[in-house]
C-alpha cells in the first residue's frame, strides 16, 4: 500500500508488539496465580493476624454449697459503666480521641454525681493497649447510679453498661478461712490459644476457692474481635463458648458451722467438727475471722492493712495452721500407748501425791493435794498429771510416739485445703538437730501429759478424737462430699479392750470428770479437756482445749475446740462444745431442776 508515495509500515511489527504484550499478560496471569492461588492461604492468615484480636472469656465460676444445698459462694452481676472508645473516635492524633473520652468522662461524672475512678493516664493506656475492649469508667456501681445513667443514656452515645460476674458470699464471714476468696488476675492462657485480651477472671486465693480453683473455673472460651486499621473494634464474632465451672458441694453443715462460729465469737481459737465414720468435715472455724466480701474483687487498702496489722492475725486459719501444745487432751494417746505395750493394767493403782519427782526435777499435778490412789480410767477422768508422767516414764517415748504418729500427729492430715501445718511430733534426732541436746526422760514425761515439744493443730486433735470415736480408724479429713466410704489413711490394730478402757475414761470425763459442762441431756458424750500453758513475754497464758465425740456408742461427730488464753478446758471450752452438740443432736427440756455444778476447775501442770 502506498499513501502519498510512502510505504505502509510492515504488519509484522504490529504482530511482534502483540506477541510482546501477550507474553507480558501471561507473566501477569502467572504472578496473580502465585499470589492468589498459591500464597492465598498464607496471605489470608496474615490478614487474620493483623485484623483479628482474640479475647479470652472466662466461664461462669462454679458455686459452693453446704451439705444441705445452701449456697455459700455465689456470683452476682456487677454493673460497670463502660466506654466504647470507637464511638468517640476522633481523626488525627490519638491524643484527640483520648481528650474526647476524658472530657466525656468528666461530663458523665457530673451527671451521675460520682467522683472519677480512672485518671487520664488510664484512659490513654486503654486507648493505646486495649482499644477494642470496653473501658470501665466506674466499676460495680449501685442500682441508683444505673437508673440515673439510663435516664441520660441519649446524651452519651459511647457509654454502655457492662455486666461482669462478681463473687458474692451470702454468709459474709461464715467459714471464711475454709471457703477462701477470689481475686482478679490475668488468667492463664488456654493451651495453644494465645489471646490478645483477657476479660478479668476470678482466681482462688485461699481455701476451697484456691484448692478447687480448676474445677470452679471451668474452661475459658474465646471471642474474636475484628479491628480496623487503627485498632478500633469493627465486628465481634463469637468463637468457642466458655464452659461453666463445676458447682462444689461441701461436707460442711451450715447450721453446725454457724453455732460453732457463735460459740467462738469474740475469742481467739479454732474448732473442728468431724464425722468420725468417714472423715467429712462438718464445721471448721477459726476465730477471729473476716468478711469474705471485703476481698472481692480486691481488699481495699484499709481492710488489708487492718487485717494484716491485727495482733490476733484473723487471716490465719488456726484450725489447720495454728500450732499448739495439746495439753491433757493428748493423754488418751499416752494411755493407749501404755496399754498396748502392757506397761499398765486396767486395775493397777498409782498413787498421786501432787508431785511427780524425776531426779531433781518436779512435775506438779494440777490438784496440789494429789489424787491419791487411782486407776487408769479415773486418771483419765481426773486428768491426773502425776499418773500420766509415771505412765510416760514406764512406756517410753518410742511407744508413745508410735501411737501419736498412728493417729496422725506430726504430719499433715491431708485435708483438701492449702497451707496446712503438720504440727510437730519431736524425736531424739529432731531434738539433737535443733536443740543440740539428747532426748531425756523428762521430755517423755512432758509429752505424756501433752506438754513439752509436742505441737498439734486443732484439726489433728479433731482427727485424734475421731480415731478414738470410731475405735482406731484414721480417715483423711475432707470438705468435698464424695458419697461413700471415707478416704482411709490407716486402720489401727488396737485391742478392743484397750480402746474401750480409754473411751470409758473419756466417757467419765464428760459425765463426772473435768468436762462435765460438755454433757447434754438425752445422749451420752465422751470428752477430754486440756489446758496447756505457755509463756508470752514472761506472762503465763493457757490454751484451753476440749475434744469430744458423741453419741458414745455409735459416734457420728468428733469435735475439737481450742480457745487461746482461756481459763481452763473444762470451764472455758466445754460449754462451747455443749452448744455445738445441742445444735447437732437437740436437747430435750430438763425434767427436773438438776443442779449443774457451778464451777469445775481443772488445771494444768506446774501450778
Amino acid at each position: 500500500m502506498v499513501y502519498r508515495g510512502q510505504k505502509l509500515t510492515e504488519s509484522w511489527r504490529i504482530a511482534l508488539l502483540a506477541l510482546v504484550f501477550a507474553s507480558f499478560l501471561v507473566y501477569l496471569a502467572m504472578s496473580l496465580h502465585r499470589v492468589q492461588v498459591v500464597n492465598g492461604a498464607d496471605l489470608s492468615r496474615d490478614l487474620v493476624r493483623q485484623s483479628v484480636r482474640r479475647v479470652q472469656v472466662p466461664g461462669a465460676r462454679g458455686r459452693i454449697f453446704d451439705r444441705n444445698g445452701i449456697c455459700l459462694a455465689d456470683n452476682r452481676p456487677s454493673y460497670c459503666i463502660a466506654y466504647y472508645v470507637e464511638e468517640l473516635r476522633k481523626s488525627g492524633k490519638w491524643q484527640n480521641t483520648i481528650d474526647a473520652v476524658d472530657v466525656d468522662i468528666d461530663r458523665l461524672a457530673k451527671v451521675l454525681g460520682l467522683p472519677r475512678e480512672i485518671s487520664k493516664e488510664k484512659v490513654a493506656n486503654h486507648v493505646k493497649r486495649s482499644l477494642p475492649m470496653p473501658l470501665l469508667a466506674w466499676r460495680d456501681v449501685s442500682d441508683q447510679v444505673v437508673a440515673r445513667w439510663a435516664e441520660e443514656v441519649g446524651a452519651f452515645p459511647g457509654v454502655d453498661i457492662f455486666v461482669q460476674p462478681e463473687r458474692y458470699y451470702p454468709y459474709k464471714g461464715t467459714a471464711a478461712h475454709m471457703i477462701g476468696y477470689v481475686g482478679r488476675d490475668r488468667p492463664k492462657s488456654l493451651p495453644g490459644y494465645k489471646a490478645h485480651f483477657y476479660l478479668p477472671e476470678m482466681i482462688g486465693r485461699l481455701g476451697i476457692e484456691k484448692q478447687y480453683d480448676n474445677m470452679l473455673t471451668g474452661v475459658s472460651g474465646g471471642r474474636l474481635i475484628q479491628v480496623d486499621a487503627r485498632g478500633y473494634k469493627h465486628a465481634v464474632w463469637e468463637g468457642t463458648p466458655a464452659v461453666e465451672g463445676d458447682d462444689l458441694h461441701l461436707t460442711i453443715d451450715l447450721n453446725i458451722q454457724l453455732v460453732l462460729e457463735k460459740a467462738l465469737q469474740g475469742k481467739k481459737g479454732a474448732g473442728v467438727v468431724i464425722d468420725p465414720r468417714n472423715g467429712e468435715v462438718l464445721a471448721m472455724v477459726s476465730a477471729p475471722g473476716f468478711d469474705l466480701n471485703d476481698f472481692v474483687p480486691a481488699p481495699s487498702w484499709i481492710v488489708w492493712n487492718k487485717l494484716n496489722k491485727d495482733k490476733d492475725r484473723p487471716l490465719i486459719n488456726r484450725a489447720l495452721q495454728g500450732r499448739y501444745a495439746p495439753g491433757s487432751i493428748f493423754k488418751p494417746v499416752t494411755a493407749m500407748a501404755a496399754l498396748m505395750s502392757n506397761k499398765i493394767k486396767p486395775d493397777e493403782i498409782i498413787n498421786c501425791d501432787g508431785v511427780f519427782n524425776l531426779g531433781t526435777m518436779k512435775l506438779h499435778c494440777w490438784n496440789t493435794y494429789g489424787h491419791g490412789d487411782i486407776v487408769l480410767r479415773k486418771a483419765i477422768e481426773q486428768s491426773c498429771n502425776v499418773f500420766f508422767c509415771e505412765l510416760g516414764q514406764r512406756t517410753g517415748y518410742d511407744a508413745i510416739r508410735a501411737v501419736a504418729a498412728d493417729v496422725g500427729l506430726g504430719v499433715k492430715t491431708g485435708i483438701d485445703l492449702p497451707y496446712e501445718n503438720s504440727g510437730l511430733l519431736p524425736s531424739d534426732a529432731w531434738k539433737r538437730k535443733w536443740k543440740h541436746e539428747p532426748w531425756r526422760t523428762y521430755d517423755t514425761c512432758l509429752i505424756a501429759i501433752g506438754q513439752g515439744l509436742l505441737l498439734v493443730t486443732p484439726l489433728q486433735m479433731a482427727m485424734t478424737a475421731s480415731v478414738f470415736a470410731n475405735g482406731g480408724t484414721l480417715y483423711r479429713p475432707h470438705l468435698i462430699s464424695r458419697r461413700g466410704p471415707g478416704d482411709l489413711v490407716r486402720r489401727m490394730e488396737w485391742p478392743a479392750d484397750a480402746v474401750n478402757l480409754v473411751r470409758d475414761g473419756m466417757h467419765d470425763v464428760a459425765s463426772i470428770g473435768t468436762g462435765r459442762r460438755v454433757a447434754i441431756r438425752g445422749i451420752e458424750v465422751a470428752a477430754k479437756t486440756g489446758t496447756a500453758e505457755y509463756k508470752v513475754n514472761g506472762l503465763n497464758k493457757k490454751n484451753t482445749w476440749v475434744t469430744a465425740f458423741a453419741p458414745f456408742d455409735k459416734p457420728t461427730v468428733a469435735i475439737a475446740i481450742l480457745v487461746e488464753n482461756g481459763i481452763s478446758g473444762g470451764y472455758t471450752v466445754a460449754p462451747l462444745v455443749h452448744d455445738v452438740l445441742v445444735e447437732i443432736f437437740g436437747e430435750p427440756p430438763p425434767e427436773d431442776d438438776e443442779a449443774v455444778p457451778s464451777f469445775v476447775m481443772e488445771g494444768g501442770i506446774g501450778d
Partner: protein
Amino acid sequence: MIELKQILAKLRKLNIVMFACMIGLCIMGVMFIYSACSVRENHDLQLQYMKHAVIAIVGLMAYMILACLNYKKLIKWSWVFYLACLVLLVMVPFFGTSVMGARRRIFDIQPAEFAKLAMIMVLAWLYGRHSNLNGFLMFCITGAIVGLPCILILSQPDLGTALVMVPTTFAMMFAGKIAPRYIWSTFLVGIIVAGTILGVICAVEKRDLTKDEKVERIIAITHLKKHQVERLQVFMYPDKDLHGSGYTRRQAEIAVGSGGVHGKGYLKGELYALGYLPPSVSANDFIFAVLAEESGFTGSVMVLLLFSGLLAAGLWTAFRCQFNSGRFFCVGVVTLIFSHMFINIAMTIGLMPITGLPLPFISYGGTFMLTMLLALGLVQSVSIYGREPSTSFD
C-alpha cells in the same frame, strides 16, 4: 435521514469486540469503585462511583462522536491539541490545585492525561506524514515532542504518567521504523540508569545506617525524590519496613492474596473496609486490590481477559488499517493502555515499585477515564475510516 443512515452504516463497522471489552471494564470499574467508596464516611466520597458512571456515559457519547468523525481530519489538528495541553501544563505549577503534595490539577482536570493522548496523536500524525524521515532527526523530534510535556509532568511530580510514555514512545518508534540503533541505545541508557539507581540502593542498604540516613545517602547520590527512593527501597526489600513505607504494598498484596481463588464476594472485601488499604488509594491506584480481593483469581483473570480482548482488538484495527498514521495511532493507544494496566497490576502485587498510575476504565479518575474513552473513540474511527482509502483522500 441520509446522514443518519450513513452514521448507522459507519457504526456497523465499529470494532464490536473492542467496544464490548471496554464496556465490560467500565462496568467493573463502577462496581468496584462503589465497593471501595461505600465505606467512606464522607458522603461526597461515597458518591464517587456515580461520578465515575457519569463520566463514563459522557465519555461514551464523546467516544461515539469521535468514532463517526474521520480520524485523519482530526489528527491533522493534533498539534493544536498538543499545544493547548502544553499551555495547560505550564500553567499547572502556577494556578493548579495541590493534592497531597503534588500539583496536578487545573480547572478540575489533569492536563497530563490529555497530554498523553496529544503526544500519541502528534507522533502518529508526524510519523504518518514523514515516514521516510526515520533517522536521527526524527528521533530528536520525537524526543522533543515527548520530552517537553514529560519534563513538565515530572516536575508536578508525577513519575507514573511520564513513565508510561516511555514504552508508548518506544512502541510507536518501533512501528514507525525509526532506526533501531537509536531505540536500542536509548533503551540501553535507560537500563544503565535504572540499574545504577538500584545498585546504589542495594549498596546503601548493606551499610549499617538508620532508615533515614540510608534515604539521605541515596538522595545525595541519585537526586531522586524522597518518596521515590522509599518506593524503590520497598520494591527491592519488601519486608523491611512493613509498618512504614512498605505498608501499602504489603496491604495490597494481602488484599489480592486473601481473595484466593473465588474471592470473598462482592462488597465483602475486608482490607479496604477496615482501612488497612488506605482509603485514599483504594478507589483509584489500588482499585485492583479491591477487585482481586472481592472477586479472587477468577475476577483477576476476567479483567486480564477483557484487557487482552481490548488490546487485541486495538492491534487488529492497526493491522487492518491501510494508513500509517492510523496504524501508529492505534499502536500508541494500545501500548498506553497496556502499560497502564501492566504497571498498575504489577505494582499492586509487588512486581514493580509503587507508582501512582490508574488502571484504565476501572480506577476512579475523571480526566484519565475521559482520555481513555476519547482515545478508544479515535481507534474506532481508525477502524471505520482506515479501511476506506478512496474516501479518505482529501
